[in-house]
């Protein structure tokens, strides 16, 4: 598990520095792969049968294949694939992520001293905060979707560790939620591309009355 956490932190840090949209989607998919491996690991260690495998399978299907696939398709239709960002903005994102990591460990030390999944909790806090900061700091709708999924992954990982297996209905509900949110977001983004010829959300300010 410790290796997984190392990879996860690496991927999240990488995400804060990526400006190319396709690379961002690949990064998101690999992040979700790590999460699904973690799901399989945790599920098999605590139980057996379909219920143990289901979270991993669902993560694989929804977050690794479907969502990145849909976003990938969307990116294919865009002409301008790079997000124009100043170097300092990227550096701030990375620095913020580093701070979030420190904060995550500090919180775990203070709130749950000596817990087994200390690294995983810290990593999930890192993911939640980084996802939020991606949504706040970046302008491109695609990157914001990536931020949302990162946030969602973080929450899911934390929930998985804390509860050691949610009821089946709740898990299905969570996945349906994310699925629908992403479908709506993808549709909206492609509409936005048609209307504004760009996916830069700052042009949306024009719509204000």
């Amino acid at each position, binding site marked *: 598990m410790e290796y997984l956490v190392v990879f996860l932190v690496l991927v999240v840090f990488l995400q804060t520095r990526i400006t190319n949209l396709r690379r961002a989607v690949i990064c998101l998919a690999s992040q979700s792969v790590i999460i699904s491996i973690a799901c399989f690991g945790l599920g098999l260690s605590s139980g057996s049968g379909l219920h143990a495998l289901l979270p991993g399978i669902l993560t694989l299907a929804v977050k690794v294949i479907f969502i990145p696939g849909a976003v990938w398709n969307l990116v294919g239709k865009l002409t301008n694939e790079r997000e124009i960002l100043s170097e300092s903005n990227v550096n701030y994102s990375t620095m913020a992520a580093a701070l979030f990591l420190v904060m995550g460990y500090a919180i775990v030390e203070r709130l749950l001293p000596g817990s087994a999944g200390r690294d995983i909790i810290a990593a999930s806090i890192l993911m939640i905060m980084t996802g*939020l900061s991606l949504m706040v*700091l970046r302008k491109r709708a695609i990157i914001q979707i990536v931020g949302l999924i990162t946030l969602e992954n973080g929450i899911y990982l934390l929930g998985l560790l804390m509860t050691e297996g949610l009821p089946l209905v709740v898990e299905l509900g969570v996945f349906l939620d994310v699925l629908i949110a992403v479908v709506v977001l993808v549709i909206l983004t492609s509409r936005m591309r048609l209307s504004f010829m760009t996916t830069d*959300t700052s042009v949306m300010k024009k719509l204000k009355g």
Partner: protein
Amino acid sequence: MNVLLGSLLVYLVGALTIIWPKKLELTAHYAGMLCAVAASGMTAFSGIAYLIMPKSALLIDASWGSYSLIADGWSGVFVSITGIAGFFISIYALDYAKGYLGKRIRALTGLWNLFLLSITAVLLAGDAFTFIVAWEIMALVSFLLVNHEAGNKDTVAAAYQYMVMTHLGTAAILIAFYLLGSHSASFSFADMMHNNLDGIMRHIAFLCAFAGFALKSGLMPLHIWLPNAHPAAPSHVSALMSGVMLKVALYGFGRFVFQFIGMDVFWYGLLVMLVGLVSAFLAVLYGTMEVDMKRILAYSSVENMGIIFAAFGCGMVLMSMNLAPLAVVAFTAAMVHAFSHSLMKGLMFMSAGAVMHAVGSKNIEKMGGLIKKMPYTAFFTLIGAMALSSMPFTSGLIGEWLVLQSFITLAQQAGTPELRLLVIFAFIMLGLTGAAALGCFVRLYGIAFLGRPRSHIVENAHEQPFFMLLGMGIAAFLVVAAGVVPDPVVNVMQSVVAGPLSTPMGGAFGIIWGGSGHYAVYSPVLILALAILLGIFIAAIFIGTTRGFVRRDVTWNCGTYPTSRQQYTATGFSKPLRRAFGTILNPQRHTEYLRKDHDYYGRKMKFYLEIPDLFTEKLYKPVQTWMIASSSAFRHIQEGSVSLYIGYTMLAMIFVLIWGVL
């Protein structure tokens, strides 16, 4: 079955007028108004019967679930006031509201019943919840009634201003109820009497209650809705609002002070007294400047509520000095004046409605000589105007006399020089108020009814239909009856405050008050006898000297015939006061040249005078400016950018996490 509950039921039946078929509008109106007349009569009957009989039981004690109706003597007084005023105003409205035929008259009549119902329900409420529900229904219904002539832009503006202000008041009252109720066993009045609220929160509860009820009764500086709402409403509605609804606020404040908060803190009474005195004086000053008949009456309502609250505050001060037997006179004064004000202000608004009905204008500058066209209305208005300027033989003087007695009592008991100075200030204010009120109503009556017609609208004026005259007549009769034989009213009010065992102030002789060291006596019967004797004496002298030779001629006017333009105008009449109190009134003259072709002839100019309201200029406008400025500052936080909002969420989350760790 209980008569009072029956009257509530009849009001409800009357409220059904709203859903009558449109073809039967006039029938609906008559049926609804007759319901209101009957129900008000029943209310008045049960209230008065309860007050006259020895008070062992409660007037009413019923409950349905969490709603309860409980009424004691204090409610009984106001139930009687509501019943009596509702009775004669409803009779008046039988004919008056016919003018609204085709203008949603069914809604007007139905809401009228609902208004009376809600007022009665406020007075009978036995717990905070029922009180607030009834209070809000009253506010809402009165808003709809004020807004009845919704085609008029000013009316809508006035109605919405009233709505906003009255909700501010309700908010303050809710806070007071919440503070008291959370420190008692339950929200029923019986439990709230034993609340254990203490310290600063008690002060806050008192201030909130005072602000809320002062707003409803139109005390300055919370009065600004009142001079706008009263002229906008139909006249019988303004009569009921001014005559009764303002008293309901006094009822609520009295309940808070007597039962929930107590009077042991000295500055409570002081605050109430000072606010009352200042309101009384400033309101009558502003009223004298107005030319709109109903605005004059509206300001006069503020003045009278000010006097009532000043007397009430005087009583509270006396109570805080542990002089309960002496405080009786102040509370009696407040109640007697409340009763007589409901009669005379009801009468005056009714006659304002009659004049409006006759000439089609509210502007007294356009009237004049109405006494010849409508003699009965003029006679009743004279009685009302005399009562409002507290002339003898009217109920107005009884209240004012008792108010003055209560202040004299306070002066006798004032131990410290500061308090003595304050009482001197109070006397000055009351004196100025009385004099200015006299001037105000001499002006109103003289300009509108005496002299020559100032415009052609007077020519078409006509006497009013029977029921309008009957309504005004009943009110005028009650004003005079209570003024000549004051002892029943005074004794009943006194027994409510002091209990049935105290020595009554009123006797066959008049009213006697011995609390201020010496005996003070006011005996209208004696004065009346004296006046009649004097009249006979003077008449005898005149009959002796003039030998039946009378020559009628036009007034000598340096050789020309006097025209109506040579009369005093209403604005001119109040000029001396405007000069004397110029620093407070700050009159603004505006001159506009409409046409100026040549230097010496053919010029047309428009001249108008504006009296800005002191509190609107100095209090409401700065608050408004500040609020708009601060909202535009908040706009920077609320930019409309989604990223920014998510950023706020993120910051809040980080903050919470760090706070949780620390």
